[in-house]
């Protein structure tokens, strides 16, 4: 089972990487770029029997390790392989 985790910097935290990417894209001619957020994307391959078990593991992984609740938001989704 695959779990995909999406982590983004919280709205109120300055995201200089996002700003730098937005700037770089604009200077490449993509003036349509209003803003960019740079986050993390993790793909976990789990040896579990059911999507429910995968969800449970994902919740634990995110809460305890993958995201810092002070600075990051996250969401995840389960996908059978």
């Amino acid at each position, binding site marked *: 089972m695959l779990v995909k985790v999406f982590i983004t*910097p919280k709205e109120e*935290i*300055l995201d*200089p*990487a996002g700003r730098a990417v937005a700037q770089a894209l604009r200077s490449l001619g993509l003036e349509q770029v209003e803003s960019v957020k740079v986050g993390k994307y993790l793909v976990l391959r789990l040896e579990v029997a059911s999507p429910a078990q995968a969800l449970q593991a994902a919740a634990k992984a995110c809460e305890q*390790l*993958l995201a*810092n609740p*002070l600075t990051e938001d996250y969401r995840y989704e389960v996908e059978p392989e």
Partner: protein
Amino acid sequence: MRWGIVQFPGSLDDRDAWYALCRVMGAEATLLWHRQRELGGVQCVVLPGGFSYGDYLRCGAIARFAPIMESVTRFAAQGGLVLGICNGFQILCESGLLPGALVRNQGLSFICERVWLRVENAQTPFTGLGRPGELWRLPIKHGEGRYVVSGAELARLEQRGQIVLRYVDSAGRAGPDANPNGSLNSIAGVCNERFNVFGLMPHPEHAVEKLLGGEDGLKLFRSIEAHLA
């Protein structure tokens, strides 16, 4: 007194801290392996700089689960002194022993240079030998040292004097030009509410000898010794 310096896989400044304490100051210090659960009766635990576990996910995020951190947490809860330097500061924030978090430098790149710091609170166990407003010159070397914390928490930290060190210029003024990493309120070092846990991004262990560029770091270590004496 006895110091304990924790060694995580990827700790780098552990030997530097040991050298500063033992060879330069003549103190007694032992290295504590991340897998052990005993602190061996030390009076101050140092979490050194480096890239624990490669800091691949988020600085300090993985190290906080090392077996020894349970003991460190207990030790801190009992009032023991804990000093986190650079990566050690990040680990303390990640484990909730200190408020806030350290994120990527505003300028996005790693910075290694000497900076000026102003002692904001000289009544902590870590700064007792300093004067309020005194300037210390210490090196920083980090890519993720921008201190962030929620607005409400920040106000409390300021009010209770938990902001112990601030980045300033050579004249002692704080401001964007003297803030190397974009930290909120130019914060360089923070204490917990009980003032027994202290984390800072600058490296006192790299400022203990004139030959290597300065000795202001000794003031911090000696303050701890004096406090425990």
